[in-house]
């Protein structure tokens, strides 16, 4: 990659502030550090990853509202977590967390455990019980 070819494909993913360093060769073939405002393929990939996240959050939300799953499942998606990660945050086994995603089981959780979920998701207890 030549110095002039260092991509400057800025988009709002970088919020205009974040410039990365890339190594590229100058006219005499020596490597130099050049700042890059972003790169199109990476922007596409990032965009796509976020779209996937948003879709999953939306689907989870609809299922919570339909009473199929508990807010635990919704907030897990919203915090980009998967089951193993969430389980380690609340210090439970994966099968236990899975159970807590059932609305019936969720209703009966102790305040202490609910607080642990709220902490893991960084939301208040009220927000945990009633998704916004």
């Amino acid at each position, binding site marked *: *990659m030549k110095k002039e070819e*260092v*991509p400057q494909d800025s988009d709002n*993913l*970088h*919020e205009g*502030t*974040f*410039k*990365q*360093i*890339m*190594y*590229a*060769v100058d006219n005499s*073939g*020596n*490597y130099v*550090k050049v*700042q*890059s405002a972003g*790169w*199109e*393929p*990476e922007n*596409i*990939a*990032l965009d*796509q*990853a*976020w779209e*996937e996240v948003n879709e999953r959050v939306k689907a989870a939300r609809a299922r919570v509202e339909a009473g199929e799953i508990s807010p635990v499942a919704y907030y897990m998606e919203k915090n*980009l*977590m*998967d089951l*193993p*990660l969430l389980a*380690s*945050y609340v210090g439970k086994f994966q099968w236990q967390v899975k159970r807590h995603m059932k609305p019936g089981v969720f209703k009966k959780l102790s305040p202490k455990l609910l607080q642990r979920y709220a902490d893991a998701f960084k939301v208040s207890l009220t927000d945990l019980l009633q998704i916004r």
Partner: protein
Amino acid sequence: MTNSFFQHNQTAHCESGVISNLLGHYGLQISEPMAFGIGAGIFFGHLPFLKVNGVPGTTYRIWPGAIFQRVCKRLGVRMESQKFSTPEKGMQALDKVIEAGIPVGLQSSVYYLPYFPASYRFHFNAHNLVVYDKKDGQYLVSDPVMDSVTTIDPESLAQARFAKGFPAPKGKMYYPVHVPPTASFEKPIKAGIEQACHFMLKVPIPMFGVKGIRFLAKRVANYAENPGDRKATLYLGNIIRMQEEIGTGGAGFRFLYAAFLQEAAVLLKKDELSKLAGELTQTGDLWRNFAFAAGRVCKSRSADNVSYKELSQMLLECAASEDAFFRKLAQVKW
């Protein structure tokens, strides 16, 4: 020495950047590419069974922490490294060390670092940064991939240091306790190159090194059937993102390694290395072309069989090019 201002240099990659900045603070000047090369950072691996959010992992460099260990060992740097059972203990220990004027390297999760743009904040637990002071209740941070120094509040920093998941940082902090004032790079460079060649060519596991690139190529060729269109674009997207991994120029660390070879050529007066650097630059450009093509497939959201076959072909070309390159590098006579 200890109270001098911390010199922040923006670098492409966090681990080699922290090494360069930390050792530079103690007067041992080592550039980022040099640290990356001596630490034999270049690698390839595709791990279909190691999934994050349902997407198989791909890496273009050695596992986190390895570059650091190797550089320290090869240059005779002694590090103090600690992990903690609770955030309270971890933050207390950090305060004590920075109070003594010692800049500290920290392993942390990108997800909890508020100074990054929101779109970059995924659960990635192997990010490295340096905290060099504390003022008005805020920690002063030199994050090597950032333009300039920044600050972070104690709560976010504690969360970032004690994030759960793989690999769990457990508050890991490290700082040099002995740095030789000067070091000869000659032997470390050779050792680093030998190790890199070994990892790229000789590890007897099909997912690693040049073999790993071919392994990925085979799987990409079948992406239309397995895992099927919708997931395949996510898989491809992840390959691109790992290839870029903040600032490596889209060539999966290949340009960074080429820059190292160039520097080594001057130091050791070996023109051969600089010629090889030129070849690796071309390989890096092949990788960039692959990312462009893969990006187009991602954007169109579906691909016919032909385009997966084409992508697979491009990967095979990358593999062939790297195969030839590392074989030549392994045969350089010292």
